């Protein structure tokens, strides 16, 4: 069976208030990926356009974006799984190429969130949960993840300071990433300084500094068959393992609040398909929409035993020089989180790391990388394992 790889990656800068329309925003990530793959639009057989639709006035963005990017008359369609949309897009592109239906597929992710206020945006994101039974109580994403933080702290002794350490690491690398929204240094002391905005309460025990920011951004991945990549003279980063799972949208259907079942299930599938174990992962990108999410991810992915995630951040094992570097591009906490573009940005980082092209953020000689991308409050979980 022939392999499927990624031959091009790109992303826009993640910003507040992108001065352009969604098609222009999507162009930015697309342009980079096309230049990276050294191909032209006629080489692309199909496109998958990924975002969360509630932020746009445009209905069915796929046709509009495909036209603007020069990808008509090839087939195009829209794919949505909230914040994990582009990782799910990669899974679909893999299937389309692996089946022989297409040779090269572009996965385009985008989100322009800045046209609505932060509170409105929280309300829309809250509606990514159960609108019939939960949203009428006034739910929002930080509050849901706060319930996981509360349960994790109570059961395992994870502390507010541990959460702050995650943000401190994020900022260490966010400062190096010229695509990131937040590029200032962060110290753990900011979280205990009542005058500092980072310590502002959002939903107990989470504070402003524990939450990632809304952003506008786009990303693009170019997926190709082994034969096509060879014909183009490209050296792809291979897709070695794919895992995906879903869970009850309503919290009343969850069996655990100290981890995300979808991440556990998706990673198990991806490890099995790739024939590797957590110990084989040299660099990882995890979905740190909140600081607690990164600690949950350490445990759900098997980098740490349940309850031991805090030890990884305390001992700095997830820093660039550590045994399992995580989010050395700043993660969602520093880059910002333009929903539909996020997975593509995470995958871009791992592709660059595996190629040795990550600049100041480069981890020493990685061979296998992992991307953990979550949609909603552990509603969708997508794990991708990539290798040289």
């Amino acid at each position, binding site marked *: 069976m022939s392999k499927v790889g990624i031959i091009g990656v790109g992303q826009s800068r993640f910003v507040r208030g992108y001065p352009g329309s969604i098609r222009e925003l999507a162009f930015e990530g697309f342009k980079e990926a096309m230049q990276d793959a050294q191909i032209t639009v006629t080489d692309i057989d199909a496109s998958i356009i990924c975002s969360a639709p509630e932020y746009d006035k445009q209905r069915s963005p796929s046709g509009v974006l495909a036209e603007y990017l020069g990808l008509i008359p090839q087939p195009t369609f829209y794919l949505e799984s909230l914040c994990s949309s582009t990782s799910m897009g990669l899974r679909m592109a893999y299937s389309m190429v692996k089946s022989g239906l297409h040779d090269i597929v572009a996965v385009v992710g985008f989100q322009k969130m800045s046209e609505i206020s932060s509170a409105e945006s929280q309300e829309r994101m809250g509606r990514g949960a159960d609108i*019939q039974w939960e949203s*009428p109580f006034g739910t929002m994403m930080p509050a849901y993840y706060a319930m996981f*933080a509360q*349960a994790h702290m109570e059961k395992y002794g994870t502390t507010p300071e541990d959460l702050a350490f995650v943000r401190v690491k994020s900022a260490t690398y966010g400062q190096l990433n010229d695509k990131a929204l937040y590029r200032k240094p962060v110290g753990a002391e900011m979280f205990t300084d009542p005058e500092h905005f980072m310590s502002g*309460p959002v*939903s107990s025990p989470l504070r402003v500094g524990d939450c990632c920011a809304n952003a506008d951004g786009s990303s693009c991945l170019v997926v190709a068959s082994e034969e096509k990549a060879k014909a183009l003279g490209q050296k792809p980063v291979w897709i070695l393992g794919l895992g995906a799972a879903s869970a009850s949208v309503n919290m009343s259907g969850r069996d655990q609040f100290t981890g995300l079942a979808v991440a556990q299930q998706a990673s198990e599938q991806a490890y099995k398909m790739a024939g590797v174990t957590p110990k084989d992962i040299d660099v990882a990108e995890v979905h740190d929409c909140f600081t607690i999410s990164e600690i949950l991810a350490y445990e759900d992915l098997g980098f740490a035993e349940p309850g031991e995630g805090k030890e990884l951040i305390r001992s700095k094992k997830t820093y660039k020089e550590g045994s399992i570097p995580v989010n050395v591009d700043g993660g969602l906490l520093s880059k910002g989180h333009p929903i539909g573009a996020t997975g593509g940005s995470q995958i871009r980082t791992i592709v660059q790391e595996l190629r040795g092209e990550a600049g100041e953020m480069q981890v020493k000689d990685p061979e296998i990388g992992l991307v953990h991308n979550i949609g909603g409050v552990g509603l969708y979980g997508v794990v991708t394992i990539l290798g040289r």
Partner: protein
Amino acid sequence: MSEKKKKEIDDRFNKFGTKSYTSVTKVNDFITYLEEGKVMGTRCLDCGLMFFPPRAQCYKCLTSNVEWFEVVGTGKLITYSKLKYAPTGFEDDLPYYIAVLNYGDYKVFGRIAGDFPEAELELGMAMKTVANTLPNRQLNYLFEKA
């Protein structure tokens, strides 16, 4: 629209929560029960599965053969969070909690009464679920100390 036509639409679910996003559902009786002070779930009469939140259709049996049951007794507090910032439309409710109770056969997601002292909350503590009328005359339910 004529008065008669309006009455044909059973949109009782508009009354659920501070702000409802659903008007028509096959479990609209949930609202009528709330008005009577009862918080209800459903049970499949064919396989016995208990549903909270209630549903009118059983995915296992593929039937609509369900009966209502009342959420009674106490559940254990599994987790909670106190919101200091609210989404649009919920600002007047601040501060408020969201929480999950485990009743064994099912779990209930909802709110703890807003004035409950956070220091007295303990995971594992027994709480009960009670019907509640909000200041804007909408209906929901709250968790209280058992």
